[in-house]
């Protein structure tokens, strides 16, 4: 039980529509804050590809046009950033990761997403399959803005949002879990917002 902070009353209480949707330690924002560790990359669409790598080889790759010809869906989800903002009912246009991975033969148990600019993040395969993860290229009906990860980012809304790699360019399929960028700097290997897995050891 936390000690009471003298003179603190708090202004925010859960609104009716938020009940059960805001993980512990989070607050709801209407804005769309931006967080990233370095400059925003700008890869032209005619140079963009999304690749699946296994054992150092690229075993499958889609150009932008090929990716956009895959079946896409409208996804409305709540997202939760480890810096404590949550945004409810965000609307994305996206291709399911299932659609991509069913075109590849593999026995992977983990993936390491890799991005322009060198960013990486690790996830269990079970968390990017089964209708839980997408390659998102649109937000609110518009092309995804570069500062929010455009042209395309991963969307894995059930984990903290650093797992939804911006500017993603592919997935490396792995047998063993391998720490990505923030994970090597003390953030949690899994990142479940409902268990408040912010840092290593949480």
């Amino acid at each position, binding site marked *: 039980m*936390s000690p009471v902070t003298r003179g603190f009353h*708090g202004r925010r209480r859960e609104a009716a529509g938020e009940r059960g949707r805001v993980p512990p330690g989070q607050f709801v924002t209407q804005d769309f804050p*931006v967080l990233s560790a370095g400059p925003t990359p700008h890869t032209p669409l005619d140079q963009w590809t999304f690749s699946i790598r296994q054992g150092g080889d690229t075993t499958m790759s889609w150009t932008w046009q090929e990716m956009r010809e895959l079946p896409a869906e409208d996804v409305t989800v709540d997202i939760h950033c480890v810096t404590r903002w949550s945004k409810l009912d965000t609307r994305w246009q996206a291709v399911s990761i299932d659609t991509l991975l069913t075109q590849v033969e593999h026995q992977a148990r983990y993936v390491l997403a890799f991005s322009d600019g060198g960013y990486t993040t690790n996830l269990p395969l079970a968390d990017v399959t089964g209708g839980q993860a997408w390659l998102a290229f649109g937000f609110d009906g518009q092309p995804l803005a570069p500062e929010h990860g455009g042209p395309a980012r991963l969307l894995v809304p059930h984990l903290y949002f650093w797992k939804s790699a911006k500017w993603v360019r592919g997935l490396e399929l792995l047998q063993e879990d391998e720490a990505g960028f923030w994970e090597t700097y003390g953030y949690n290997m899994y990142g479940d917002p409902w268990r408040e897995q912010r840092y290593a050891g949480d």
Partner: protein
Amino acid sequence: MAGTAVRGRLTWETATASAVRDETPTVRTIEFELPGWGGHRAGQHLDVRLTAEDGYTAEREYSIASAPGEPVAITVERLKDGEVSPYLTEELRAGDEIEIRGPAGGYFVWDGQDPRPLLLVAGGSGIVPFRSILRYREQTGIEIPVRLLYSARSLEDVIYRAELDQLSGGGVEVVYTLTRQQPPGWTGRSGRVNAGMLMEVAWAAGQQPVAYVCGPTAFVEAVAGGLVGLGYPAQQVKTERFGGTGES
């Protein structure tokens, strides 16, 4: 990798405010007594948790304003419609207890072990982690040259001004740019940081500098993009963004 040296689980500790100091009309520095603190690196941040009488809690992250080895301090800007920042800047007083957990973040840190010239570019309260870095540099006698370009709305909004002026010299160059209002006779720079200003103030890319950029999103986007345009490799431009939510 340096960042892998992370201690075990971070736990919430009760911290007692030992000193509060107003930096500007909307910004306050709070120093804490925190017996359980295991030390931090310059540039790291921490988590703050406040608890209301009915058990309601609010958590936020703040950059650490003090150098490694100094008592833990944060500098908080009061945000309109904020929940935690108005409490910390208006209500909290010396002797009050809050909960703190940290330090966190191992990327936006500077240990002085990298000999390359250092460029710090701050927008508004983005100066806070740089105070930690500059004090650390001063205290350890590290002679790596530093340029700080600090963008503030007006001279009154410059946080740590006396301290920065004092740190200036001895290998530290401090350049202010005032975006909205300049006092009469102002001889410093005016206007937002843009490519032209960066070209004049930043180390040339050929000197192989490393850059840290901290501030609101639009500021960080412009500065980081500008530095890449000047030939800084993207990997040598570290960014930390905050604000813009209007909610902290």
